Each structure stands twice: as structure tokens, then as C-alpha cells.
């Protein structure tokens, strides 16, 4: 086991071929002969507030959809301005997500409809909690499922920036002992003491190398390494490639920074961020309006991310989730209330795209969950299980989703 900290100080590159390697060192060494880093990255996006999946991927082939939503339905494809963008003759994409359509058409993006958590709760708080802990119905689970997934993935050398959340605080999904890091901004991470920052950081680092640090020593070592890697690789200085234009706002900014971390080759394996504003109880709108505005920013950010990543997208799988869907029928306020199943987007490496996956349960009242909501036919855990197994190489998923019957037959085969 080599000591990476020493390595970083001495730049002993030859020792770590195959391990992670900050790009700055590759550049320094002019190491054109080193193998290109091919670490797979999972980017998970949480749409907090329960997005209305029926208006994201619209079942335009169902008359019931139009009957249930007289004022907020997205018109059938080909019906003029504001119409849904057809995906497969039955489903269509919300027109505000037009930037995402090319990725569906070139088969790098897929959707899973009627996906979600089997738990019946319609509380944002509980449903988010269950989705992030990965144990629907079990409230006492202490850690998040992505944290448990990282812990399952043994690698010879792992970066302190293995799991990063671009959020102000460490989210539930990454809570636990795997050492995930949360940050608002890549540029701001590290010891800050004005002009003396570097010197003060060194002093702290020396202190924590001493035995007196005990249990803190490990975390400290990772912190200083993370800060040093961010400083030397300077991902924040990496401009978007391929003319990618991220929309203004927190979500675009988060995805832009995740792209920077990936391109800087700092050893990232799991990235997380969230985006809110989906709780459309009133004035949701159809092709235009509240939801449309949120989707426009959301779709533009995701498309910018894919553009920015370019060919690197083959190593990256982006997946989105939301705690539950919304009622099939619009309510008296031209909005929708808390429902059940929802739609997930998968984009990037390994995705057998160009399809809407999942068994469609239908919108006739006899097929609805509790007589009102789209039924869940795909457990969100099965979608993640497939990603974690096929992309992240995690063999034993039982500790990741304890109590869940991980049946390979239920795998939808979304990924190659």
C-alpha cells in the first residue's frame, strides 16, 4: 500500500499507473504514455419536491391523460406549438426538454416510467428520506445507500474526492462512514486564512499527522489531500468544452462543477446534486408555465453537461430521481397533488437509450394506485442496482439495499 500523500509531494508517477491521477500531474510529467483514466462516474440528481413525471414524459397515447388534465396536459405531438416531442409513438417529451431530445434520439438517453418507491407515503420528508436511505419504510437506517455502495466498492487506491456532493451539507444519500465530501463550490474548499492559507494549512496538516490526532488523523489526511488535489488540479479553472452553455442558476452551476471534477481526473466516482421547485400544487401549467420554466433550466443544464463531457460521457452515467410523482388528475388549482410513481432519466455511458423502459400500468382508474395515482411498476432500487452492478462493478448489493429482494430477473436491461 503506497502512501498517496507522499506520492503527491514527490510526484512518483510510475507507482500509481491505474490509480487515480490528478490531471495536473499528468501534464507536469508530460505523461502521454500513461493509460487514460477510465474510471466510471455515477452522477445522481435528486429533483426535490416531486416532479410531475406525467408532464415530463407524457403518455400522449392515453386518452385518459387528456381527460384527467383539461388545463395542464401537454398537447399530442404534431398538434402545433407547444406539443409534446414524440419519443416512441406513445410517450412524448415535454417541449421545454427539447435540448435532451437529441440524446434520446442518438440512443444515449433513456427513461424509466412508472418508477418509484413502494412505500405509500405522500410526505416529501418521508419519501425523500426513504429514497436516500434506500430502505423504504425503515426510518432508523442511519446511512445513505450511495454511501453504502461506495463502501462496497473496494479499490486499490481511492481518492478523497471519490464521492462528492455539490450541496451545502452532506445529503442523506451520502451520509455515513465512506468519507463523502460536500461542497458548494470547488474553489472555496480548503483552509482559508487569507495570504497565509497555505502556511496555516500546512501547520494544521502537521498537527493532525501526530499521534495525538488519533481517530481524527484519517479524516484530516483525506481533507488535506482533497484540498491539495483541488488546489493543484484546479478544476474550477477548466472551461466548459464543445461550446457547452450552462444555464444560470444553482443546478447548472452544480453540474458544471461536477463536469470540472470529472475532467480534472481527481478520482471522482460518485457525484450528487439536487434541484428543487417541483411541488406544483397550483398553476402548474402545461407546455408553458411554472413546470415548463423549471424543466427548461433543468433540461438545458443536463444537455450542457452532456455537451461539455463530450466523448467522456461514455464513462459517465447520469440518473435522476424524485421522491414521488403527482396525481393523474389536475386539482382545482390547475396543479397536481402528491402522487406515487414517477419517471427517471438515464443518460450516458452504458445506457441503451432511445427507449422508455418499465411496464406501463395505464391510467384507467382500475389500474391506478389507491384509485388516483400512477402505480409503481419499477422499484427505484432495481434501477440503481443495475447501474451499481454494471457500471460501478459492485458485486454484492445486499448491503446497499438491505431487505430488498434483488432479483436479477427484474433488471430492466437499461444498461449494456
Amino acid at each position, binding site marked *: 500500500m503506497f502512501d498517496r500523500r507522499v506520492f503527491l509531494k514527490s510526484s512518483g508517477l510510475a507507482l500509481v499507473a491505474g490509480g487515480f491521477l490528478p490531471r495536473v500531474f499528468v501534464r507536469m510529467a508530460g505523461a502521454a504514455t500513461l493509460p487514460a483514466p477510465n474510471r466510471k462516474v455515477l452522477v445522481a440528481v435528486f429533483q426535490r419536491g416531486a416532479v410531475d413525471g406525467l408532464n415530463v414524459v407524457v403518455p400522449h397515447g392515453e386518452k385518459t391523460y387528456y381527460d384527467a388534465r383539461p388545463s395542464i396536459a401537454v398537447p399530442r405531438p404534431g398538434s402545433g406549438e407547444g406539443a409534446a416531442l414524440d419519443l416512441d409513438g406513445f410517450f412524448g417529451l415535454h417541449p421545454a426538454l427539447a435540448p435532451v431530445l437529441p440524446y434520446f434520439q442518438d440512443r444515449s438517453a433513456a427513461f424509466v416510467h412508472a418508477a418509484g418507491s413502494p412505500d405509500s407515503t405522500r410526505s416529501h*420528508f418521508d419519501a425523500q428520506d426513504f429514497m436516500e436511505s434506500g430502505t423504504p419504510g425503515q426510518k432508523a437506517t442511519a446511512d445513505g445507500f450511495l454511501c453504502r455502495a461506495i463502501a462496497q466498492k473496494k479499490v486499490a487506491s481511492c481518492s478523497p474526492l471519490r464521492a462528492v456532493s455539490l450541496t451545502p451539507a452532506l445529503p442523506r444519500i451520502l451520509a455515513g462512514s465512506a468519507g463523502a465530501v460536500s461542497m458548494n463550490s470547488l474553489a472555496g474548499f480548503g483552509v482559508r486564512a487569507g495570504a497565509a492559507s497555505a502556511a496555516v494549512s500546512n501547520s494544521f496538516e502537521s498537527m493532525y499527522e501526530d499521534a495525538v490526532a488519533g481517530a481524527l*488523523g484519517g479524516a484530516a489526511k483525506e481533507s488535506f489531500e482533497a484540498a491539495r488535489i483541488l488546489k493543484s488540479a484546479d478544476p474550477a479553472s477548466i472551461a466548459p468544452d464543445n461550446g457547452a452553455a450552462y444555464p444560470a442558476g444553482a443546478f447548472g452551476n452544480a453540474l458544471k462543477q461536477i463536469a470540472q471534477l470529472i475532467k480534472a481526473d481527481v478520482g471522482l466516482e460518485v457525484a450528487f446534486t439536487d434541484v428543487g421547485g417541483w411541488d406544483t400544487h397550483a398553476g402548474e401549467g402545461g407546455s408553458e408555465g411554472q413546470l415548463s420554466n423549471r424543466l427548461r433550466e433543468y433540461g438545458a443544464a443536463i444537455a450542457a453537461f452532456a455537451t461539455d463531457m463530450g466523448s467522456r460521457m461514455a464513462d459517465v452515467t447520469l440518473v435522476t430521481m424524485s421522491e414521488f410523482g403527482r396525481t393523474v388528475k389536475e386539482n382545482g388549482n390547475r396543479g397536481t397533488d402528491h402522487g406515487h410513481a414517477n419517471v427517471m432519466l438515464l443518460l450516458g455511458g452504458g445506457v441503451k437509450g432511445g427507449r422508455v423502459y418499465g411496464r406501463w400500468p395505464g391510467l384507467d382508474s382500475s389500474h391506478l394506485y389507491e384509485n388516483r395515482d400512477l402505480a409503481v411498476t419499477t422499484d427505484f432500487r432495481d434501477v440503481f442496482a443495475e447501474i451499481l452492478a454494471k457500471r460501478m462493478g459492485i458485486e454484492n448489493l445486499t448491503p446497499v439495499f438491505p431487505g430488498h429482494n434483488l432479483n436479477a430477473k427484474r433488471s430492466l436491461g437499461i444498461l449494456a
Partner: protein
Amino acid sequence: MLAVFEASAAAPTSKPALANREMAIHALNRLAFGPRPGDVDRVVSFGVPAWIDEQLAPERIPDGAVESSLERFPTLAMTTEKLWEKFEKPIREARQEKKNGVNGVLDEQAMVPYENRPRRIVEELTEARILRAVRSERQLNEVLVDFWMNHFNVFAGKGLDRIFLTSFERDVVRPRIWGKFEDLLLATAKSPAMLFYLDNAQSAAEPDHRAQRPLRLARFLGEGMAPTRANGNGPGGLNENYARELMELHTLGVDGGYTQKDVTELARVLTGWSIVRPEQGTGFVFRAPLHDIATKTVLGVSFPFGGGIEEGEKMIRILANHPATARHIALKLCRRFVADEPPVDLVERVAKRFLDTGGDLRETVRTVVTSPEFSDPRYYRAKIKSPFEYVISAVRAIGATTDDALPIARQLGQMGEPLYLCQPPTGYSDAAEAWVNTGALVARLNFALQLAGNRLPGTWSKAESLLPPDTATDPRASANALSCALVGEELSPATRAILEKRIDAEAGENARVPLIAGLILGSPEFQRQ
């Protein structure tokens, strides 16, 4: 038996007993939020056992100064009804106007004046918690408030809990932490905060277990608070959430010997324990028509057909005085005050005292903090501070004054312990592992530098004032004096060497003293208690 009991059965220490001064430091670190300048000397001269005794009877310690300083937070004294009027109604009305398409109403938040925004309530609670922890003379009381608010965690981010928490802390928890555990437990069980947080307010008997035909719950509870349709059994349905956490977290503990059937039956016992709609007065209400009147058995206790509220009250008293509860509470108190893995013998002794005194919390805590194990040298500075303990102890150590604690509250968020915002009912961990993570440690170091450098908005510190006059001109002597002032004793030779190196490099710089103080507050030594 819990694994930790076995793991911690270590041989007695061979370290020498703690000296008087170390004992004072230890007591101030564990039973208070760390020493302020001069506190160690005061406790030494007062006598450590006498000081502990005094802290165990906080009602006799005058604390008027801190209480009057909190008068500028008006919500602390408001009833839940008043909080509803002032903070929930305006935002709901604005939301309704937006829904109705009233001209110009695009953002309901913008329609509500700042002083009527609901976030004010939790901000004031947070500020008060921080200011009391920093300034109160009743330090052990504040440590125990932190302990019990965490034991009975309620998440302010869940709907109406933001208006229920003020009364929960003020009227439910604070008045009962020195009394009988069963009274505290029963009060939390009947609190709107807990009933809402863990969904018991919307738990109802299955229709064929009710005395009368089903009521339209939404009429009682309002939109969004009506029961979910568990099992598709018509309106209403059993919600097991509170019953499960009541046994797993509040009383017996996860290995407390109950079954899933006990959880379900206890949930049935507690059906009808609900809350009055806020606009109709707020508070606990027993809704008899929703109560499950069929026969039930919980932990071997049978309830015949036709019972009411007394069933839940009886079960809560049984749970409160159960031997498994005694062990669970004893373990948590020992973990908080003694060690992450406390000695088995101590936990057993504390549990016995709990049972012998009918769950008297003062006597239970006294048993922990006056035990030989508490002053065992092997636990001296052996626990990592939680973010709250770390931040408050740093502010106290440097003798800082605070008139706006929100920047401190935000720092706690960065370190992973935002007050009143712990989402899962487990509360925050009392063991080190949870706090030792990469992003959080950087946040601690930056907090230390900001605080000591007098760069934390709303808080004033002057590290130079900690120095005795004769050391001011000698940098190395001043570093040593700062260590003694902030940590209570000299630092390890390694840490000292690092400080001296930094001092030599900074020679002649005016910012030297605050910077060295920041390094000491960020040092591994100061992370421990």
C-alpha cells in the same frame, strides 16, 4: 446484551488519577460546554465535587442575565396559537392568493414581510440555544437539553413542526429533564411536535375496529394532515411510525426485545392520539372515534375490548419503566458523559439506579457523573466533540461575545449538525465516528481561524486579551500562554513545535496572536473533550 457492553469491558487503567486541575477541566468539558477564561481556576477553588453538585440543581443557580438577553427573541415566549397567527397564516394566505391568481402575486414568500416569515421561529430557537449554551451558568442543564432534544428529535423541516418546536422545547422538554422519565416521555407523546413529526396525529383504527362509523379526518386535521390510506382500507389507516420509534429510539432500544407485532399493536393502542387544528387552538386531543377499540396485546400486556386514551397512557408508563429502557437510557447517558463505549459495569449500575428511583433523571445523571468511571484518567480528553460542543466550547474558550448567533448556526450546518434540522428520528450521533469526516473537519478548522481572527460576523473575540502582560513580547511564551488559556494545559510537544515554527515564520506580524489562537482552537487537542 448489546455488543458495546462486551467490547468495553477493559482492564482497569494504570494511569495515575486525575489531578485536581485536570479533574476541573474534565468536568467543565463534559458537564459544561468547556471552560471560559478563568473557569478552571474557579472550579478548582470551589471544589470539583461541590461544583458538580451545584450543576445538578440548576434551579438554584441564578441565570437572569442570559434569560433577559433572550427577550429580544419574541417568538420564544409565544404560544403555538400565536405562532400560527403570526407566521403560518400570512404565508398560507399569500399562497392562496397566488393560487387564486390575485393580480401581481407571483411569489408568496415576497408577499410576507420578513418579520412574519416562518423561518424566523427556528432562527430564534437556534440563536437562543447557542446563546444559552455559551452564556448560561446552568451549563449541565444546557448539556442535558441538548441531550434530550436529541433523544426526542423533531425535525423543524417537516411542515407544521416549525411552529410546534418552540413549545416543545420550552413547555415539554425543558421543564422535565430533571424529573421522572415517564413524565418526560408522556409529555413528548402528547406533544403536537412529536405527534406530527412521527405521524401519530394521522393514525386511525381500521374502520371495523372503530366505535362509530369513520369520520372525515380531513375535516379535523386540514389538508395534508389526513391519514394515508394504508392497505387501501378506506379513509384513515394505521400509521406505525411513532409506535416503532417510541420503542426503538425513545424507550426500549433496537435490541429491546419487542416484535413487529408489538409495534403494530402499540400503534393500535395509540390510535386517536392526535392534535387540534392550529387555527382551532392547537394542542393534544384524543379522538375517540378514531381509536381502535378491539382487543390488543403489547409486550404481553392485554387490553380488553372498548378501551380509550388510558390504554396509551398505561403503555407509555410501562415502557418508561421497563428494564430495557433503563439500560438504553443509561447507555446513552454514559456514552454522552463518559465514553463512546462506556464500561459495562457503569451502565448496569446507572440502569439499576434508574429503576430503583422510578426513572428519576436527576439521580440517574448524578450516578453517571459522580461515578469513579467518570473521572477515570483513561477517558480524559478521550471523546471527540460534536460540532455543537466544538463550536460552543471554542466561543467560550476564547471569551468571545456574540450578539448574532446565526453565523455560528450556519457553521454548525457546514459541520453537519444544523440545530433543529436533523431529519431522521434517531437524532445526531453521540459517538465520534459520525463527526469524523472530510468536509466537516475543514469546516472546523476554518471556523477556528475565523473565530480567533475576529472574522466571524456577529461575534467578537480578542485573543490578545487572553495573554498575561509579561508574555506579550515573547512570541513563544505567548503561544504557551495561549495554549494554557484555550486548552487548559500545555499542548503536546509535537503540536507545540508546529506552533513555534509558525510563530518564527510570522515574526513581527500583527496578526500573530489571533492566528496562533486559531491554530490552537483547530488543533487535535481542542477537538477532544
